[in-house]
């Protein structure tokens, strides 16, 4: 019996020392004990595919085509004078009129919901570099990112279409966000951008007495 116990304990110790414990980190891919039909020959987003030369499953959009349900490459596809009832005109999608002048004022409605939408998107895509107040003091500043402050006369006087164009296509060191933002998201950021500018450049006289009382000034 002693021999049995010795072998029994030895077997347990061996198994545990080889297999380890749950949750221990490992660089080895997970063991699929019963593979069933877990891995099928099926197209998956962003996956590898040996059929194509570049090894990619996701195919680049052929020029002149629009990905279904995705109008992010709208500008490259439609001509300047194209007007879509649902998506608006080129000015809406480009921030520029057909004669290349910038759209002066926001083509979207100024509503609280739109402003909140803009704040949400601003806090995702802009805040890291431009800072919560839009003064260019984002968390990335100590790491060497140079971001513009919104609070100078040049940017206060630029048209809304210009701001839209910079958000979408970038400027200087800033990369464009047209791959990640839809037109209405970018316009709502423009709206929030204006609110930020106003927040740092407003005078007490613009407030009603009631509002002043509320703020204690």
């Amino acid at each position: 019996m002693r021999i049995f116990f010795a072998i029994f304990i030895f077997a347990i110790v061996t198994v545990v020392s080889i297999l380890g414990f749950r949750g221990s980190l490992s660089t080895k891919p997970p063991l699929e004990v019963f593979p069933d039909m877990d891995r099928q020959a099926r197209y998956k987003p962003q996956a590898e595919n040996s059929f194509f030369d570049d090894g990619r499953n996701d195919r680049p959009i052929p020029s002149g085509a629009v990905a279904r349900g995705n109008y992010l490459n709208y500008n490259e596809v439609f001509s300047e004078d194209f007007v879509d009832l649902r998506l608006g005109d080129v000015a809406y999608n480009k921030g520029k009129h057909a004669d290349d002048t910038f759209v002066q004022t926001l083509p979207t409605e100024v509503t609280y919901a739109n402003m909140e939408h803009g704040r949400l998107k601003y806090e995702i895509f802009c805040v890291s570099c431009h800072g919560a107040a839009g003064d260019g003091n984002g968390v990335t500043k100590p790491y060497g990112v140079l971001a513009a402050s919104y609070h100078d006369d040049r940017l206060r006087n630029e048209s809304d279409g210009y701001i839209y164009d910079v958000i979408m296509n970038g400027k200087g060191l800033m990369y464009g966000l047209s791959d990640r933002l839809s037109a209405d998201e970018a316009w709502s950021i423009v709206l929030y951008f204006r609110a930020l500018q106003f927040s740092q450049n407003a005078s007490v006289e613009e407030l009603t007495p009631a509002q002043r009382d509320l703020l204690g000034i």
Partner: protein
Amino acid sequence: MANVFPKWVNTIPIKVIVAAILIKTAVIAGFTYYFTPKYTRVGYAPTQPVAFSHALHSGQLEIDCRYCHTNVDRSEHSNVPATEVCMSCHSMVRKDDPLLAPVRDSYASGEPIPWVRIHKTPDYVYFNHAVHVNRGISCVECHGRVDQMKVVHHDKPLSMGFCLECHRNPEEYIRPPEEVYNLDWERPETEEFKETAVGFVHDWKVNPPQSCSGCHR
């Protein structure tokens, strides 16, 4: 007549029973402990082509999940960002760091960075990211505290039991929509919040399927 069997033979049945029970217990315990995704999947932490630290980017710098994984709230697939997203900062930050050489090469050549996928559902499981995050199920429920991981590892088992646990009791996991991307958020243990959570499930018509075809196709 002398005894045919010596006396110690009397103990054999007991010994065999004890040994059988021990072996059976050990085998069952071993299977229960090891033959589960809690062991096979959890802890998988492959070496990535670039030593990207979520602890730095998401934890310390508090960059929103959606800055890079932009499509998580609009698509079933939560995308790995394009190299251009990395370069929007790293064209300025650490622009000559040898650790980032694969990123610069990828940006110059257009070849994707071969990130290693960690979380894989079986191919007959159709998980939709957008419907979960847009209805108050946080990233952290399935991915763990990625914002504290220097190297991302598989943190939750993602087994069918794991999915059903939440599909049966969504009110215990649902959270306010503005806290979905805040992995740090702690669920208040108050009766009041429980009611709010039940309210979310009701108001947003959260009706997680428990039938096979809800997820399997």
